[in-house]
């Protein structure tokens, strides 16, 4: 957990990085990307359930952020600001996908969770085959349940439960009121409780 001093220090250096980006410094932007790429990718992946699409959308989001960094005024944190871009890009993509191909994400588009053996994030103790299968099934159930929510409801529940964002940060990222965020959370939770009760009660 960060202390207030380190938090302030990281905020200052983040603002400094942003200012350098605004002057066209791509290395400063690389630094910001390194800080947030995993969180951004993870959030998008949880919304679209496809690794390739999440990769592309994360790239698109960062590219848009670079193009519009000149308009960042520092009124919110950089993370909230970039989340707004991420959410716009992802929700827009989900809407277009729904128009094009219906709810196809529950068929072949879902990729089973894989861990790259070369990845730094490989768990030290690998799960037993039956445990891995069980986790895949759980993941599939969760993806399916989240897929039944609208893009906006998905965004709200994921930002709240996974990223621990505050209501006002979520509202800022989605460009809506705090009341709307709370209302969406209410319905998203109810729906997921109904769809996943048997899973989380028995895990």
């Amino acid at each position, binding site marked *: 957990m960060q202390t207030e001093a380190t938090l302030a220090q990281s905020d200052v250096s983040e603002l400094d990085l942003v200012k350098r980006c605004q002057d*066209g410094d791509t290395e400063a932007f690389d630094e910001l990307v390194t800080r947030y790429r995993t969180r951004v990718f993870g959030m998008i992946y949880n919304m679209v359930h496809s690794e390739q699409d999440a990769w592309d959308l994360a790239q698109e989001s960062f590219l848009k952020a670079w193009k519009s960094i000149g308009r960042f005024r520092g009124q919110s944190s950089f993370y909230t600001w970039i989340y707004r871009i991420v959410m716009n890009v992802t929700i827009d993509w989900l809407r277009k996908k729904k128009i094009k191909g219906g709810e196809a994400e529950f068929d072949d588009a879902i990729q089973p969770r894989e861990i790259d053996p070369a990845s730094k994030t490989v768990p030290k103790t690998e799960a037993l085959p039956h445990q891995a299968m069980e986790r895949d099934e759980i993941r599939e159930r*969760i993806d399916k349940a989240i897929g039944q929510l609208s893009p906006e409801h998905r965004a709200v529940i994921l930002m709240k439960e996974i990223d621990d964002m505050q209501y006002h940060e979520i509202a800022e990222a989605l460009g809506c009121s705090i009341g709307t965020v709370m209302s969406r959370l209410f319905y998203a939770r109810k729906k997921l409780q109904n769809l996943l009760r048997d899973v989380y009660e028995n895990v």
Partner: protein
Amino acid sequence: MKTFEEKWTAWLDDQLSGRELSEFEASLPDKAAAQAEKAEAKKLGQFLKRELSAYPLKNEEFFSHQLHERIVQESGEQRRDRPRRGGTPSWWTIPRLLWAGMGSLAVFLIFTVLVMHQERPAEESQYLTQILNARVDPVVSPNGTVSIFEVKQDRATVLWTEGLQSLPADYAAK
């Protein structure tokens, strides 16, 4: 004023306090059931966090590298496009239209001046011809004509005679 959904969400997330909390809890018809649902919602939250939060971004360095390449590429394209985008409208809109308009106007004026100048009827001929008098005796000279041309500018008068019979030598004496 908050709706029930908003209050319920705030209560689940422990965001209600003081009077607001006591008022909301007092309004619940079955507090025990509400507490059970709150516990269940918390369990759902923990479950989602545990299952969804650790999805890794593989090849992180390649991700950054690819993004960097795209940024460099886009920046290069923007730099190349800038003079084109910047130059084209300025040359094809206001200055060029202005120049084209002024050119057209000049051509029109020259043309008009030339044509008008050519078509303008001469107010007064430089060589004004006036037949001032012609008195010829038809018996003596049936085809005879006498004309006088007067050039005002040169202050000259020309007497032009045709078809006259030669005058008898004693004519002047008469």
